[in-house]
């Protein structure tokens, strides 16, 4: 198999002699980190197993996210029914709570009931792609030559922050269902779960990218 390669000559995980560090040259170090991550991502999605990982993980993540929002449930009475609101565009952009937007359609198909919230679907796809690409880099690296590998746990941990964000929308409702005592601080903190999830996913991706050994 072919490991991700750097078409500009390759990089190494271990600091090279004279390589920038966060302390000596933070901007150069950051740029180098982004470049390394970019190379790792391009290399991963350039391979069949990487693309498969990306697509499968992103799809699974999206389904899980929609389930966490309770937009996708097995609560249908049977039959098929489609309902679309009168003004779907303006409705789609109506916020209900932080990072939860109004549904524009309800689709019932047998036991499945799906509420279509375009903004949240876009959010779920974005988060899913972030989780998927992180895992794709991890999987490709893990399957590659030993010199290219990162720790097996890196990929596994990549998706956790993103999954948590799925519960952010309905956090207080979740507390009600599972019986935890809500507080003003806890409810307020839940409003930050989605941005925190995005930030942690990006950091995880950069971390995974930095750990990949890219041979020259």
């Amino acid at each position, binding site marked *: 198999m072919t490991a991700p390669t750097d078409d500009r000559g390759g990089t190494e995980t271990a600091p090279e002699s004279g390589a920038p560090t966060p302390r000596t040259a933070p901007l150069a170090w950051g740029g180098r980190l982004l470049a390394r991550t970019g190379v790792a991502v391009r290399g991963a999605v350039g391979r069949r197993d990487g693309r498969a990982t990306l697509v499968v993980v992103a799809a699974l993540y999206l389904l899980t996210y929609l389930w966490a929002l309770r937009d996708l*449930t097995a*609560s249908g009475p049977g*039959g098929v029914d489609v309902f679309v609101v009168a003004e779907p565009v303006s409705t789609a952009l109506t916020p209900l709570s932080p990072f939860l937007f109004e*549904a524009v359609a309800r689709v019932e198909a047998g036991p499945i009931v799906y*509420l279509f919230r375009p903004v949240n679907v876009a959010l779920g796809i974005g988060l899913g792609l972030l989780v998927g690409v992180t895992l794709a880099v991890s999987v490709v690296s893990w399957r590659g030559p030993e010199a290219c590998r990162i720790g097996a746990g890196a990929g596994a941990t990549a998706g956790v922050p993103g999954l948590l964000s799925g519960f952010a929308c309905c956090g207080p409702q979740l507390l*009600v*269902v599972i019986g935890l*005592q809500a507080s003003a601080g806890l*409810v307020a903190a839940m409003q930050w779960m989605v941005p925190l999830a995005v930030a942690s996913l990006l950091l995880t991706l950069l971390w995974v990218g930095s750990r990949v050994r890219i041979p020259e």
Partner: protein
Amino acid sequence: MSHTRRTLLTTLAAATGASAGCLGRGGRSSGGDPDGEPLVDLGRPCANSGGPVDLSGGRPATAFERARATPETASDDGDLPLRETPLHLGHDRSAFVDGQMSGGVGHDGIPSIDEPRFARAADVGLPDCERVFGVASDGDVRAYPQRILVRHEIVNDVVGGDPVAVTYCPLTGTAQGFYRGGTTFGVSGRLVNSNLIMWDRARDVRWPQIAATGIEVGGQRDADGADRYVGQSLREFRVVWTTWRRWRTRHPDTLVLTEETGSARNYNRDPYGSYEPPVSGHYSTDAGRQPNFPLLAYDDAESKRVVVGARTAAGAVAFDKRALMGASVLTGELGDTPVVAVADEGITTGYVYANPEGLRVERDGDADEGAVYAVDGTPAPPDALPLDRLQAFDAMWFAWHGFYPGTERVGI
């Protein structure tokens, strides 16, 4: 908001059920309650809770001859009918302001129903045990299914020629009606004692549902004179918490709210839990299951027990609903005034009356006919004793006590 709905296929189950008359239309009980149907909600299974639901379609209430769905008295924009005397508050008003908190949704994040549509009872499918909130006003009779209101909490409607808001808070188990004059109510997204805080859209005064009293002015409107509503109380009307079979039996000509609300919602599941066995989520009556949001006052009694509460300017009183259904008549005091509560088992509700002269109230009739009472020998139905009827409604005990920690208790 108007909408389009396209039903591609109806379910085989619904078709089979309808043809077999299994929705209850063909086999309505002629007398007593079917076995297993509870007199009091929460923790009691209901035998006929299953069956197909069809609350599709519907028309504006103005399309029905019996409904008085057009306002019969003119209201200025923003006009809001108020009680002459504010209701008793169990705490300083500032305690409600300080004790409120976000429920996790934004302003109108739970959308009220502003253009309700209705169908005749015979034209819908609803299991007997489905909870409905009934309103009857001079021959104009409506039922609002809990499965719909749990997603909207407020219906801005016109019933009996009056603009009204039919409101429901799932967390406190309270269904209450308010006259709304020339404005509408919305869900503010904030809670106090777990109870819905409404906002009126003319001036954004915040009204906790149970207290029915303005506690502060929000920031959504720039309306002159909004402060004068703070500390004032809304005018209310009776909303009955009962089951579909009971309401339909009492009022065969009732209209029922349909799922054509204009919003895309999943009315097949209750986001807070289940009233059906096993009772779960927020509705659980397990001893260890405490209310999720902080209360202004706590009590050791069973938190989810259902009480019939009444309050006036003078104070508050709560009757244990199960005890009332068993005894038919219970007495207590509200402030310094004797009060009497009577049960109407036919629709499993209770009425509370001021009885300052201590008249003798006793059961004097056949329960199957709606429980007739006698007041000093004069027969009267439970909802119209010759006494001053107080506004009363069902509530979970923890919420009632949270608002009125000094409430008189009967059977609690």
